[in-house]
């Protein structure tokens, strides 16, 4: 399966799960909204250029926004993590895109600890920015803090569960291929 097709299917799956499962189930608490759709952006191949990454991030957020009736909210947050992603990868594992043995960020490609840090930072940024925008609109400051922490916690839990339950079958790239 080509990278392009694989990522289109992945996007559709993540959006559907987010809209019809995670936003539909009664939440544990009003502060805790589980989010997983942005894992799509975290999983995009290393080789995607920064410009394309921005556009993909923006569109991903916008698609979800139109389902959630909040145009711009998730788009802004996704755009932010799409922008920051290359820097984080660079800091954690300073390599060229072609030097990676695997195509996409994963525990295998980056080692567990750097990968966990990568996911953690981007999750925190995504939720922090999104909840901040929500807070500017309605709400109070304490709600804001609790919400960021709680939502980040539950999202990390979801992402690492997904990572362990569905290990992606990524090809090891060799010079001969």
């Amino acid at each position, binding site marked *: 399966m080509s990278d392009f097709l694989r990522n289109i299917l992945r996007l559709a799956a993540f959006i559907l799960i987010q809209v019809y499962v995670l936003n539909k189930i009664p939440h544990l608490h009003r502060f805790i909204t589980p989010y997983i759709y942005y894992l799509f952006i975290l999983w995009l191949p290393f080789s995607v250029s*920064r*410009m394309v990454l921005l556009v993909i991030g923006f569109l991903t957020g*916008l698609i979800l926004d139109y*389902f959630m009736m*909040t145009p711009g909210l998730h*788009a802004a947050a996704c755009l932010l993590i799409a*922008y920051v992603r290359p820097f984080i990868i660079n800091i954690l594992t300073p390599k060229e895109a072609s030097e990676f043995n695997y195509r996409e960020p994963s525990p295998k490609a980056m080692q567990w600890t750097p990968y966990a840090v990568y996911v953690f930072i981007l999750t925190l940024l995504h939720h922090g920015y999104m909840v901040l925008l929500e807070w500017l*609109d*309605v709400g109070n400051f304490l709600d804001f803090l609790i919400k960021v922490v709680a939502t980040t916690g539950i999202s990390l839990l979801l992402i690492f569960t997904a990572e362990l339950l569905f290990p992606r079958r990524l090809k090891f790239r060799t010079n001969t291929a």
Partner: protein
Amino acid sequence: MRNIFLFISRYRTFITFLLLQVVALWFLFNYNRFHRAKFLGVANEMTGRVNTLYNKGEDYFTLREENRRVHKMNDSLLNLLPRNFLQRDTGMQMIQDSVLYDTSGSYRRYFSRPATVVYNTVNAQKNYIQINRGSGQGIRDNMAVVSSNGSAVGVVVNVSTNFSQVMSLLHVQNSVSASLKKTGDFGTVEWDGKDPRYLTLKRIPKSVDVKKGDTVLTSPVSFNFPPGYLLGTVTDLQLDNTTGMYLLKIKTAANFYNLQQVHVIENMDREEQVKLFDETKKKIEQVKKSTR
């Protein structure tokens, strides 16, 4: 000039980032003010179709509950049929026909259309419901939406050709005029964005005799809602000492977790009422100005 181009090519990612960020924020803040968004009509059609597909499957899981409600509603309507009432054969009694299409000059003020909920959330601060009827089926902005058990659900805020978005009662900007069934006092029902099972009823003065379990109905002075639809029951009383008003916690009558069949109710007189209201306001202001 060359330097400008160099600058742009050097920072083009950052500039794109900023541009898109501005677009996103513009969407966000524009939308919240006017309940409108660019391309929302198109997007509404698209998400509406996906939601309808999903809803077809989801409906099976709540059929039993929905059937029970419809049956109950049917039952109460059956009870209203004229054949249930017999006239006593005394020849002396005043007889009043209970059927509505009479010739004594009453006319229709509210008209109801059935619709199905295709998407609904309760978890956000601003919850919207999407229904499968739109301007093509005669739905307009500001029509009231009630659930199949006859309790208020929300108000239509945006329509496309085949779908409409309804601002749920569970929306922090929502405010519905309500009245206590027992005493008839008017108040306003709002939502604090916290628990989707409870609403807040404000502006009931403390002189009013309210008790737990009292019924709250939509008020007869609302432009959108017909009077007498259930909003909920009082579960908690709290007195706000600064204003001397009650803050009442209301348990919602509609179950927002499994909304399926709803009725969209049109107030046929709304336009006239609103027009009169606005003109009155204008007139009074003019009088004020001229007397100054």
